[in-house]
C-alpha cells in the first residue's frame, strides 16, 4: 500500500469544467484519499486489524436553483464524467420541487496547500508497534481496577484532500489523525460501572506514547472505580455545582454548538439531526450570564477538529457563539450564510469523506477561560457537587432539555472537595444552564469526541472543552 496519497488534481479541475460545460451555474469537486489503519482489542485479545486506502471524489453543482451531488470511488475521466452528468441531471430534476432557490454566499478565492507535520508518519508505523502500544495500555488498565470486560479500538488516518471550485479556489491539505476509544467495565462486589473514554489528536504517531496514554486512561478508570465503590448519595434541594472541563465541554458542544448550527435553525436538518430552540431573531439576545462565552475554533494546532479551510474552500476562523451571555454568532456554511443574508460564511462546512455533502459542523467548541483559580471556584460553596466527568448524557433535538450523569463526582462542603458522590444527575434546560454560571476557571482543557450529524450520518472529529465552571442554585435530577 502507498505511504502517501497522490491525488490527480487535474481530474478534479476537469470535473468542475465538465459541470460548467453542462450548464451548471456553480461547481466544485472535492477529492480525498486516506491511508487508514485500525486495531480492535476485546478483553485484551487482538480481534482484528485493518488497513487500506480509501480514495474518491465528489462533485456538487448548482443549477436552476437546485443542488446536485454525486460521488465515486473510481477516479478516471469516464467515471467522473458519468458522476458529473448525474449531479447535473439530479439538480435539474429537483428544480421543479425547489421552492427556495439554493444559493451560495460570495467568498474570496483561495489558493493554498497545508499539512500537519508528523514527527513519525502514521503510515510508517508497523502493525507490531500498534499492537504493542494497545496491549500495553490494556494491561495497565487491568492492573488499575477490577476490570471484567473491556473493548478498545485504535484508529489512524492520514487524509489528503484537494478542493477545486468554479470560483477558482484550489486548496490542498494533509491531516493525520489518531484516536483511541475504550470502554472498560469495572465490577466490585455487586456493582458495575463503565467509562467511555476517547482520546484523539491531529498529529503523527508521536502522540501514541503508551506510558503517557496509559497513565491518562488508568487515572480515569481508577476514579470511576472509586466513585462507584465509595460514592455517597447526591444531596437534594438547591445546591451549587462545579463542573469539570469534560462536562463543560459536552455542554458547550450539545447545548451551544448544535443549536447555533444555522442549518438546524433554518430547518434543513429537521427530519434528521433536528431543529433548534434558537431562532434567527434571537441573535443579540441574552442566553446566559456575563460569565458565559463559548467559542468554536478549528485553527487550534493539533486539535482533533483541526482545519484551516473548510470543505467549501472558506478560510477557517474562530467563531464566538456566545459572548458574555449574549448570542453572538451562528455556525454557517455558504448556503446558510446566503439564505440568512450573512454576507459571507464563517467556514463551518465539513464532510467526513469524499462521498458526503459538506454541511454545517462544529470543530473545537469550548467555554472561554475566565479568571478564577480552581480553589476560588470552590470558595463560598457551603454544600455542593463537583461533577468532574460524565457517563450518560443526552439532549432533545431542539437542544433545550439536557442531562448529564456524573462519573467522577464529589461533595463540596464548606469550600472543600470531600467524599465521592455516586451518579449525580444534572437535568435542566439550556437557558437555565448558561444563566447559572457565575464564575469560570483559568485553565482550558480539551477532550476528543466524534460528533454525529447528517444523513447518511457523518461522524466527524471534534474537541469539546473548557475550564472548570461554577453553577449556582441547581436542583439535581432524579434517576430511574
Amino acid at each position, binding site marked *: *500500500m502507498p505511504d502517501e496519497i497522490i491525488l490527480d488534481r487535474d481530474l478534479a479541475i476537469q470535473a468542475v469544467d465538465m459541470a460548467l460545460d453542462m450548464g451548471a451555474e456553480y461547481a466544485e469537486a472535492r477529492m480525498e484519499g486516506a491511508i487508514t489503519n485500525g486495531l480492535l482489542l*476485546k478483553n485484551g*485479545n*487482538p480481534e*482484528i*486489524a485493518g*488497513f*487500506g486506502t480509501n480514495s474518491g471524489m465528489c462533485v456538487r453543482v448548482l443549477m436552476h436553483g437546485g443542488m*446536485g*451531488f*454525486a460521488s465515486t*470511488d*473510481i477516479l478516471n475521466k469516464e467515471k467522473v464524467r*458519468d458522476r458529473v452528468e448525474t449531479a447535473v*441531471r*439530479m439538480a435539474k*430534476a*429537483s428544480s*421543479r*420541487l*425547489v*421552492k427556495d432557490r439554493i444559493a451560495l454566499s460570495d467568498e474570496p478565492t483561495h489558493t493554498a496547500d497545508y499539512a500537519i507535520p508528523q514527527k513519525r508518519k502514521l503510515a510508517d508505523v*508497523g*502493525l507490531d508497534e500498534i499492537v504493542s502500544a494497545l496491549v500495553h495500555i490494556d494491561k495497565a488498565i487491568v492492573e488499575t481496577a477490577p476490570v471484567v*470486560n*473491556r*473493548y478498545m479500538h485504535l484508529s489512524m488516518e492520514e487524509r489528503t484532500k484537494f478542493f477545486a471550485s468554479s470560483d477558482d479556489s484550489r486548496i490542498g491539505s494533509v491531516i493525520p489523525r489518531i484516536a483511541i476509544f475504550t*470502554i472498560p467495565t469495572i465490577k466490585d462486589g455487586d456493582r*458495575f*460501572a*463503565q467509562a467511555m473514554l476517547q482520546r484523539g489528536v491531529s498529529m503523527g504517531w508521536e502522540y501514541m506514547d503508551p506510558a503517557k496514554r496509559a497513565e491518562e486512561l488508568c487515572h480515569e478508570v481508577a476514579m470511576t472505580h472509586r466513585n462507584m465503590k465509595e460514592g455517597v448519595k447526591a444531596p437534594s434541594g438547591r445546591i451549587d455545582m462545579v463542573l469539570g472541563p469534560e462536562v463543560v465541554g459536552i455542554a458547550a458542544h450539545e447545548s451551544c454548538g448544535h443549536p447555533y448550527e444555522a442549518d438546524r435553525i*433554518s*430547518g*434543513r436538518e*429537521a*427530519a*434528521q439531526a*433536528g431543529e433548534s430552540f434558537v431562532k434567527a431573531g434571537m441573535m443579540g439576545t441574552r442566553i446566559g450570564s456575563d460569565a458565559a462565552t463559548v467559542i468554536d475554533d478549528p485553527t487550534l494546532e493539533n486539535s482533533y477538529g483541526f482545519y484551516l479551510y473548510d470543505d467549501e474552500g472558506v478560510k477557517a476562523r474562530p467563531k464566538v457563539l456566545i459572548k458574555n451571555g449574549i448570542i453572538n454568532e451562528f455556525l454557517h456554511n455558504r448556503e446558510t450564510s446566503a439564505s440568512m443574508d450573512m454576507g459571507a460564511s464563517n467556514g463551518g462546512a465539513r464532510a467526513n469523506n469524499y*462521498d458526503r*455533502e459538506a454541511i454545517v459542523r462544529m470543530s473545537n467548541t469550548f467555554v472561554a477561560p475566565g479568571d478564577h483559580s480552581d480553589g476560588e471556584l470552590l470558595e463560598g460553596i457551603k454544600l455542593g457537587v463537583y461533577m468532574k466527568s460524565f457517563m*450518560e448524557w*443526552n439532549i432533545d433535538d431542539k437542544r*433545550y*432539555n*439536557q*442531562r448529564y*450523569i456524573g462519573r467522577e463526582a464529589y461533595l463540596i462542603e464548606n469550600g472543600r472537595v470531600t467524599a465521592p458522590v455516586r*451518579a449525580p444527575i444534572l*437535568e*435542566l*434546560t439550556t437557558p*437555565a444552564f448558561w444563566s447559572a454560571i457565575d464564575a469560570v476557571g483559568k485553565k482550558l482543557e480539551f477532550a476528543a469526541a466524534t460528533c454525529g450529524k447528517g444523513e*447518511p*450520518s457523518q461522524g466527524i472529529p471534534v474537541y469539546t472543552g473548557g475550564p472548570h465552571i461554577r453553577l449556582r442554585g*441547581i*436542583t*439535581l*435530577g*432524579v434517576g*430511574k
Partner: protein
Amino acid sequence: MTAWTKMRAADIPESVVRKALDMGADDVICTAAAGETKQIRFANNSVTASKSYSSTGFGIYLAKDKRILSTDVTLPAEIDRALDELLKRIKMMEPNEDYAGLPSGKPKYRKQAADPAVAPLVEELYDHVNAAIASALEAGASRIAGVLYSGTHTLNRATSGGAIGTYSASSLELSVRAMSDSESSGHMVQSATGPKSFEPERVGRVAGELAIESRNPEMGKEGKFDVVFSPMIFANILNHVGGSCSAGAVDAGMSFLGDMVGKKVASGGFTFYDDATDPALFGSVPFDEEGVPTGRTCLIEKGILKGYLHNTSTAKRYSTESTGNAGLVFPRAWTVHLEPGSKDRDKLISQVDRGYYMTNTWYTRFQNHLTGDFSTIPRDAIFRIEKGRLAGPVKDIRISESMLSILKNVKSIGNDPMLVHWWEVEDPVVTPHVLVADVNITRSTQ
C-alpha cells in the same frame, strides 16, 4: 493489465480466495460489492439536495495462525498488492485466541434479486417526494422535511470454507417529519424493496396528522406511568435489545443480557427473534459475512432468553452452532422482530388509566451497557392517556429507565407490526405497538 482486470467482478472473490490460500493463508473471505444509492433531501416543503453515491470494491479478510487482518480495495488491479501486504503485515499481528476458523461446506442459499424497477428511477423519485409533501400539507401540517433513498447493490462472496454466494438487493425508503408549529410535529417512515409496495402519500399523511394532533402541547409530568409505545419508538428500544443479543456484545461487556440464557428477561407474552429471510422485506440477506445462510433465530421466547446471535468463533466458545449472524467483527442482528399480539392500538390505549402515548424518540444513551440503564427523549407527537383515551399533547419529558425493566413490564403487545428503519433505528426492526407498565419519566428540574 493484470489477470484480475480481465475477470468479471463476480468471479473475482473465488479466485482471490484460491490465490491467498496458495500464498499461505489459512482462512480467507473475499467480498465484491457494488451499488448506487440516490438520496433526495427536503425541508421547508422544498428539495434541499439531490445526491448519488456510486461505490465498488473488494473486501479481503485473511487469517493465518489465528492472526486476523482485513483490507479493502476499489479496483481489481490493486488486488495483488493487497494480498502481498496482507501476508506481509499479518506476521506482525498477534494471535486472536478466540478465533475458531471458518465453517466448511458449500451451502445453498435462498435466491434474492433486486427489483429491476428501482435502479433507473430518477425523475420518479421527485414525484414520490412531491406526493409525500403534498399529503402531509393536506393533512394540515405547515412545514415538511425528510429524505428519500433509492438504492440497488450486488454482493458476491467466497470463503476458503467453500461457500460461494451472490445476491442483489434494492430499496426505496422514505422518512417524513411534518411540523405544524414550532412545538408540534409528527414523524413516519417506510422502507420497501420496490415501488409496488411504496406508499409516499400514506407516510406523508400520517406524519401530517400527528403534527396536527399534537398542537399546543403542555409540559409533561414526571413519575411512573403506563406508556403505549408506537412502532417508531419501540423499534429504537428493540434495536438496542437486538444489539445486546450479540455474543460479541456480551463478551465485551456491552450487553445487559450477559449470563442470562434460560432466565426470565421479559414478560411472558414477549417473543423476539432475528429473521432476515423474507426477500420481500427490506434489509433481508441470504448469508452472513462468513457465508453461513441466515435463518430465523429465536432470542427470547415467552420472556425467557433462549440464546445469543453467533458467528463461528463465538458459537464454538458457547458450545453451539453459528446462527448466521457474522458481522465484520462481532455477530450482529439483521432484522429483529417482536411477535405481535392480538390487540389493536386503541385497545392498548384503553387499558391505560393514566399514562402516555409516544410516537417517536431520539438520542437513546446508556449510563452502563452492562446494566442496561439508559435514558431516551421522546419527540414528535406525545399524548397523555386518561381513563383509556388519548387526552392532550405534551412535551419536554425523558424516559429514564433500564432495558430489563422495560422488557419485564411489557403488559400488552399490539397486532399491527411495522418495519422501522431510519436515523435512530440503524438495523431494521419489526414491531407492533406495545404497552409497558410503570415507565419512569423525568424532566428538567429548572
